[in-house]
């Protein structure tokens, strides 16, 4: 879903940069105020893994492929969508400047779609589903919806840019990312969260939070 320079006129691309910038700055503040120093290796491992897995396009049929985005995964691990924004910003910067995967003028839009929208929708869908469903199902649902909504937003941006006609663009982007979201995002996020929950349950911030709550209850 990396938008190339040619797909968005410069004036609109700048608007997306202006919208994305406060989110990027707050994600840096999140690191400064919330990221524990001992968790830095976790952040770096997730960022490297996401860069690598984004190079692995999965065929979804219809002559189309797609790959994981990963913002929801990072947000769930750190119990904060800002962590997802931060990691995707770093990954997208390297992809844009190093590999021409996504434009530089459109980097703001790409950070907005893949870092902010997919991460926030994914994480808050996860926490909502988590109240009634298992962790793996909630992770699947959150990651899937996060990717799907970001693709819909991307289709609207393409229509505003005059690049795609609105309705056919929405249909094509929606259909492809509905499927990419199932395999590339939902399934992988659910598996990785499951693996972390099993091997390092202490890493998932939500487990630590509930642990503190339990300690508080015990004291009360």
């Amino acid at each position, binding site marked *: *879903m990396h938008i*190339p*320079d*040619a*797909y968005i006129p410069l004036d609109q691309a700048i608007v997306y940069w202006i919208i994305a910038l406060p989110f990027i700055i707050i994600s840096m503040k999140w*690191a*400064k105020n*919330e*990221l*524990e*120093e*001992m*968790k*830095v*290796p976790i*952040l*770096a*491992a*997730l*960022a*490297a*893994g*996401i*860069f*690598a897995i984004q*190079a*692995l*396009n*999965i065929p979804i049929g219809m*002559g*189309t*492929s*797609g*790959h994981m985005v990963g913002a929801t995964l990072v947000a769930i691990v750190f119990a904060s969508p800002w962590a997802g924004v931060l*990691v995707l910003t*770093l990954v997208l*910067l*390297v*992809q*844009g*400047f*190093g*590999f*021409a*995967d996504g*434009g530089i*003028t459109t980097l703001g839009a790409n950070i907005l779609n893949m870092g902010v929208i997919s991460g926030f929708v994914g994480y808050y869908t996860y926490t909502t589903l988590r109240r009634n469903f298992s962790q793996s199902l909630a992770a699947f649902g959150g990651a899937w919806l996060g990717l799907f909504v970001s*693709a819909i937003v991307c*289709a609207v941006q393409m229509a505003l840019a005059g*690049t*795609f006609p609105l309705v*056919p*663009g929405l249909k*094509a*982007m929606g259909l*492809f*990312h509905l499927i*990419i979201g199932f395999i590339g995002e939902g399934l992988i996020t659910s598996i990785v969260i499951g693996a972390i929950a099993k091997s*390092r349950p202490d*890493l998932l911030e939500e487990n630590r939070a509930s642990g503190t709550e339990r300690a508080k209850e015990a004291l009360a």
Partner: protein
Amino acid sequence: MKAENMKFLYAGILIALVLSVLAPFLASSDPDGLESAAEGVIEESKMAELEEMEPVVGAPMPDYAIAGMGKSGEIAAIVLGTLLVLGISFGFGKLFNKKV
């Protein structure tokens, strides 16, 4: 720095490097969702025009490849990118974190 977290980092690096080496062989070369949608909904002449436009800022390894190096160049490009992201995010995290 907790030893267990360093172990997680090493495991993460290993998985990321394995994915980086396999990606040029396993990744589908079909267009991604956005490109495929573009091919489906944009008129051919306009699509050709869009495809001809160069990125505004040139990148050293466009399309995760090194010119003239074939598959080994693709592996090298993705491995380099993975290590770069690793270094940048580690360095960034070291610079910006909650000092306790």
